[in-house]
């Protein structure tokens, strides 16, 4: 059963504009791995060179920040959804 990963607007450019990507995984880390395997451009936006989640990106399992869930493997249940929530500013022109 696929887990839904919500993609925020700023990152949809890297998921062919999809707002939701289904992945087959039993825990959060492997779900994120599966996500970036499907959409390689996402990797540098989610993880730093050492593979750690970037400090301006938060990942939620349902309504909980995964940083505050168990330190090890975070299991995914049948109806769970994963959301990626990056910092958005509103403005600096680039």
């Amino acid at each position, binding site marked *: 059963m696929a887990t839904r990963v919500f993609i*925020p*607007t*700023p990152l949809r*450019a*890297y998921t062919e504009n999809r*707002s939701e990507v289904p992945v087959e995984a039993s825990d959060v880390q492997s779900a994120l791995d599966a996500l970036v395997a499907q959409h*390689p*451009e996402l990797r*540098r*936006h989610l993880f730093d060179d050492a593979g750690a989640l*970037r*400090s*301006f990106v*938060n990942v*939620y399992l349902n*309504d*909980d*920040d995964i940083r*505050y869930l168990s330190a090890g493997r975070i299991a995914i249940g049948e109806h769970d959804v994963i*959301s990626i*929530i*990056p*910092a*958005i*500013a*509103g*403005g*600096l*022109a*680039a």
Partner: protein
Amino acid sequence: MSIESSNGASPEVTLTNDEIRRYSRHLILPDFGIDGQKRLKESSVLLIGAGGLGSPLALYLAAAGVGRLGIVDADVVDESNLQRQIVHGTSKIGTRKTESAKERINDLNPFVDVTLYNEPFTSANAMQIARGYDVIVDGTDNFPTRYLSNDVAVFLGIPNVYGSIFRFEGQVSVFWGKHGPCYRCLYREPPPPGLVPSCAEGGVLGILPGVIGTLQATETIKVLLGVGQPLIGRLLLYDAFAMQFRELKLRKDPDCPVCGENPSITELIDYEAFCGVPGHDHTTDVHQSHQNGIMAVRQISVEQLAELRASGEPIILIDVREPNEYQIANLGGKLIPLSQFTARADEVPREGRVIVHCKMGGRSTQAVEHLIRLGYTNVENLTGGINAWADRIDRTVPKY
């Protein structure tokens, strides 16, 4: 979660008969009433920004009868603001946003005392400006000011009502170090410049700041009155496209550098340096400092490009903007959007003179850096992008 009113004191002011008539729909409202209205009258709110979020905030907070509104903004009204910044009007193009907002507020509710700060909100003036206000409302459009507003609110012990927007999506929360998390508990550090697209680059639905700013105004009134369940420890997400609201739990980070148990930051810092961007000039190339530290990107000016084109020297022009931007205006370059650049970089020839451009020069710098990493030696960045071309070479090219 219930909290005390943010300005603490029990209301001592009185309402005139004019005020009683004006606010009658509040006065008959349970949990608001005459005490609530008096409390608003003796309250003060500092609005950081009189733009998209600041517009509904200024209008609703003034209409509701907040006694004193401070407005910080150094910008002037631009035509491209009017699609969303509804406190301003066409006749105000070119005038200061603060003055324009004040005129509208005075007309809407002459009982509101408006204080204007026609300057950027910076580490140098922020504490002085904010001291004495009951609430800070963050209506900024950039990370340095966002972190600054947060830290000022934490140091003053007052709530920071947060709102942020991008395209069709917004976030709202109430950060109040005394009662819950602050912005740094949520995002310890800002993204490096360029990694997250901006509104100027990504666009924004004009109504979106109306919704998010109105939610911020609601939360501001609630924390001023100490009623209801404020959005403390909760992040509200709004997706206008899907028309969905979602809510996430936020936790106070015990290791937070400003509001944690052992804070490492106890006074305001240099927020531009912290966010890796230059100061308050929104049109400069935000990657200048970034690129200096990483690799040298060869630059070419729009004047030089115009000369090259006139001379007939063959060049390969690459445009890394999105297709909808290309539709608005283009220089005839080959379109390879930055979002697809990793996969399509091999479409850039390794022979010949390659010039890469975007809207203002930020995204094209990233593209050139990527090409340099791939071993390209024949690539240059068009400084200032197509907007500089429109300003200095061809005025018929529309700016957006």
